[in-house]
């Protein structure tokens, strides 16, 4: 077979793979077709790999086999052992790996092309222009920049999501705290400028591959600098944005290799991450720039916790809640990050089943930024066998909340804070919330009155129709189930 026929067959296979990727993602538009969609995606990947290996002149089969076996082993191990509560860290880590693969491939290409370009054969000399073309070298610089930034930023995000901490001199430092360096905007700006200068230097002299590696290091530093100031509540935005970057890095590598399937698959991921990022920002009523560069300070003008709570908090017990739940028609549970922390999803399922057995209708209201990543709560509830029809979006459930007898807020705070509607000066002003304060009775399961990420008190807790059940999420539901059975 001549060279051209091989290329035609290879690129036709890439075309089929691209179509399969698109239809695979389309499958994800409904839970019923989603498993098949995912399988289509994996088939597309297999096809792309086989077509590549078939068409390329592979001399190092041993490296390829070892790499594939090692990568598959690690990937399969992580995928099968990660608990559902650990999904945000897992996705964060994979975002980083995507970035790493992109800058490594671009670096490898640069090294190979410099060698070809410096080869003193007539044949090689003829291809120099092509190998280190302006397009290729700009794309290599872009892969290096985006890829390294994605890797280091993702590793910081993983440390924050996994609640890692270091103890220095007897004092504990949590990764999830915002780290605010003095003059950080200036430092970040200068680092960014330096990265761009290095890109230009590389484009001017593509044969000096050391510029590339300096660029990779500087971009990695930039990735750390832009991620460390971001606090826990904004993690869903950051993880979605890094997801997008990992796709765009693959895309840039596609421009290096002039490879269609890389560009198409990379763009799909890039678009997906950008859409999720924008959904998360809208759900917090903040712009992306605000999430990335501003910090949510404590509300200085707002009322203090004492003013809001004094004398108005009604603590309750499992027995009292069991009485409230006697004969109710409609119950809505609003889960937050606290449910993930206490691993309460299975106890919640048992509780919901018990209530449904008594004729009540139990639904779940899920705020888009509840948890640490988009869809985090849904996965936990699905793990506990709660059917997806019972998981309602904020916009779907809000108009019907007035007909709800009891709302149970489990480890959520800012996403049910009515201040978002009432106080235009509050840090969460205008953020869409789940209006549980409109339900007849609100039960809040929470360990203490400590504020949520926004650092402001929640007047919901002090309402006449609110009962506070101070407890750990999992234990609270176990006690509720026992109390219901006794009653």
């Amino acid at each position, binding site marked *: 077979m001549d060279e051209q026929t091989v290329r035609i067959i290879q690129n036709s296979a890439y075309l089929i793979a691209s179509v399969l990727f698109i239809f695979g993602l389309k499958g994800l538009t409904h839970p019923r077709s*989603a498993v098949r969609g995912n399988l289509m995606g994996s088939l597309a990947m297999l096809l792309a790999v086989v077509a590549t290996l078939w068409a390329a002149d592979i001399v190092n089969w041993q490296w390829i086999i070892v790499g594939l076996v090692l*990568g598959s082993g690690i990937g399969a191990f992580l995928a099968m052992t990660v608990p559902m509560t650990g999904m945000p860290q897992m*996705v964060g880590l994979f975002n980083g790996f*995507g970035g790493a693969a992109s800058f490594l491939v671009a670096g490898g290409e640069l090294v190979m092309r410099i060698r070809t370009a410096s080869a003193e054969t007539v044949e090689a000399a003829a291809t120099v222009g092509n190998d280190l073309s302006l397009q290729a070298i700009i794309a290599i610089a872009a892969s290096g920049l985006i890829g390294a930034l994605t890797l280091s930023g993702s590793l910081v995000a993983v440390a924050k999501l996994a609640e890692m901490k270091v103890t220095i001199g007897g004092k504990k430092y949590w990764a999830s705290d915002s780290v605010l360096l003095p003059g950080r905007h200036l430092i970040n700006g200068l680092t960014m400028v330096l990265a761009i200068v290095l890109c230009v230097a590389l484009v001017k002299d593509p044969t000096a591959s050391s510029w590339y590696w300096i660029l990779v290091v500087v971009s990695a530093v930039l990735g750390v600098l832009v991620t460390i100031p971001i606090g826990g509540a904004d993690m869903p935005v950051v993880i979605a944005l890094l997801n997008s970057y990992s796709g765009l890095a*693959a895309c840039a590598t596609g421009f290096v290799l002039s490879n269609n399937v890389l560009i198409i698959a990379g763009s799909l991921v890039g678009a997906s991450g950008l859409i999720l990022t924008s959904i998360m920002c809208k759900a917090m009523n903040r712009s992306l720039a605000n999430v990335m560069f501003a910090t949510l300070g404590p509300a200085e003008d707002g009322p203090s916790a004492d003013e809001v709570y004094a004398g108005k908090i009604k603590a309750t017990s499992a027995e009292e809640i069991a009485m409230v739940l006697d004969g109710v028609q409609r119950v809505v549970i609003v889960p937050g990050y606290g449910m993930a922390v206490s691993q309460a999803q299975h106890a919640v399922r048992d509780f919901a089943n018990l209530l449904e057995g008594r004729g009540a209708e139990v639904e779940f209201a899920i705020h888009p930024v509840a948890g640490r990543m988009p869809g985090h709560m849904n996965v936990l509830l699905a793990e506990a066998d709660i059917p997806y029809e019972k998981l309602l979006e904020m916009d779907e459930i809000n108009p019907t909340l007035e007909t709800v007898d009891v709302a149970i807020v489990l480890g959520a705070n800012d996403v049910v804070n009515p201040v978002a509607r009432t106080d235009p000066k509050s840090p969460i002003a205008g953020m869409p919330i789940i209006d549980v304060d409109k339900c007849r009775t609100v039960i809040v399961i929470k360990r203490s009155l400590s504020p949520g990420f926004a650092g402001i008190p929640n007047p919901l807790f002090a309402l006449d129709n609110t009962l506070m059940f101070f407890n750990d999420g999992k234990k609270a539901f176990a006690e509720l189930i026992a109390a219901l059975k006794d009653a």
Partner: protein
Amino acid sequence: MGLELVTLLTIFVLAMIVGREVITKVPPTLHTPLMSGSNAISGITVVGALIAAGAGATWTSTILGFLALVFATVNVVGGFLVSHRMLMMFRKKG
């Protein structure tokens, strides 16, 4: 450069538009599996890694390609498998 770049940019822009149209229809309940599935798809860099690791051009490019191959394969295998695990949970009582 030139014509080829425009062709590649055409593919890029159209793919972004298709991606936007398809992904806005993914319901929030599947956003986590969407992200892990995206992780797997971004492992498409495996294509470039195979070439760099297998071509045997220089030691440096082989090592770089090999490392990229491991990272990309972790993403592909791990991403599709963990998505499958999650999606089966959604299907059980669907």
